[in-house]
């Protein structure tokens, strides 16, 4: 199979839907990065905030379902380089959750976030004695920066830090997708039957707990080219057929 960064012409196995999903996520990430870059020059942040919220909501759901329904049931393996694909996948998901949460905090804190970040980094870098002194001076340090650079520059600085956080999140996401495709998907294909893969894919594409269960598949479809969307449509038909068969034979 090609990587998510290539053109996807065929799904050899249901779990190959991951290539389509990863591709759609990255297209959205790159669009968000452009919005964040432009926001450094000023302007309304509504579109950027919406894009970040969608991005994080999609990724958090994706990671949660992968942990519970894709990697959860599998047995891990130890590769020659010391990598354990399932364990490492969980760690990468935690890192994505951490960075996603920091991005949301960044948006919510507004102008203060860049200053807070700088002061926190400064205090963490100090030796113990200075550290203790500076802990009592957090407000003072913030004031020094604010007074020195002026209120207007505080806003510019915040936007600059936000852009960096968006780029960083995108890079972490890209690395994770590549790792998952190279090391985790082969384990899925080895250890799951087609039927199990299809059920896992159903969970990845449809949110059973939402009043709008199609919010994931509709998002993915919206980001893809026509031929790739057709692959997704075919997979959706397979999912419906399997669900119908399960109902027909009385499976829960």
């Amino acid at each position, binding site marked *: 199979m090609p990587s998510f*960064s290539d053109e996807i012409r065929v799904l050899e196995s249901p779990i190959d839907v991951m290539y389509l999903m990863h591709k759609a996520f990255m297209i959205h990430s790159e669009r968000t990065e452009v919005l964040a870059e432009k926001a450094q020059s000023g302007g309304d942040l509504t579109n950027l905030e919406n894009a970040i919220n969608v991005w994080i909501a999609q990724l958090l759901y994706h990671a949660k379902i992968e942990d519970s329904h894709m990697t959860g049931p599998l047995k891990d393996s130890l590769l020659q380089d010391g990598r354990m694909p399932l364990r490492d996948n969980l760690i990468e998901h935690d890192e994505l959750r951490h960075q996603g949460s920091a991005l949301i905090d960044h948006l919510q804190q507004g102008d203060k976030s*860049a200053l807070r970040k*700088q002061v926190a*980094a*400064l205090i963490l*870098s*100090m030796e113990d004695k*200075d550290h203790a002194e*500076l802990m009592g*001076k957090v407000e*003072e*340090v913030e004031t*020094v*920066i604010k*007074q*020195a*650079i*002026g209120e207007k*520059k505080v806003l510019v*600085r915040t936007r*600059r*830090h936000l*852009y*960096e956080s968006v*780029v*960083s999140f*995108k*890079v972490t996401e*890209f*690395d994770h997708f*590549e790792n998952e495709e190279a090391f985790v998907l082969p384990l899925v294909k080895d250890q799951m039957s087609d039927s199990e893969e299809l059920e896992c894919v159903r969970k990845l594409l449809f949110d059973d707990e939402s009043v709008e269960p199609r919010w994931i598949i509709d998002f993915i479809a919206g980001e893809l080219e026509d031929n790739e969307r057709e692959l997704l449509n075919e997979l959706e038909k397979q999912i419906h057929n399997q669900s119908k068969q399960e109902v027909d034979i009385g499976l829960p």
Partner: protein
Amino acid sequence: MNYSPSHINDRNMPLICVLNLLAKSLDSSLTVSNESLNDVGRTKSINSFEVEMRNWATAFFLYADSASVHFERCFIKHDDQSDTPEFITGQSLLSFDYAVAKNLLDHGFSSIMDLTQELFDVLQHEVQKSVLIPRVKNHLTLGTTKIRRGLLDHNELIVGLTTHNQRNFADYHQNHACITGLMDGEADGGKWIVDWMKYHLKAEALETINAVQLSR
């Protein structure tokens, strides 16, 4: 990007600050280097990116030296070395704690150096046989983004501190003292750094440097 307000002396002549020119050059260089990553493997090699970043690091050290001189001139040093230097309040009526401000600047400098080292580590360990794969390109882009953010944060702070103290700032920038200080401190009379700045600066700033060189 606006680096500092226009500084005007009592004869209404613009004051030339080498820190401002260096910051503009450093920012421009980072932007160009980052964009050049898109051309690696086509019209550029990864080696040219590495050379650009090594030049950037050299220029940044000179910027840091100059920033340090600018910063110290914000404060009055007492004859008694045990007394903390004081910030002279100018028209802004603001005052800054020397130790806090110094810590901030030292931290800004060292964090930029750490980020630069991280970028060189990526170049050294992740680029194999001069081939730049998308994953590594992403990390280099992130590296230059972080360095640029650090530089602009750092420069805003030093410019903010130094320009609040209008009197000392004006004194130091009369007769191009600030820029000639940088040139005189270099073994080659500042030829390399001036050429490097000229390469990265826009026309208006170029005229400024040319005027200073002619006046010497």
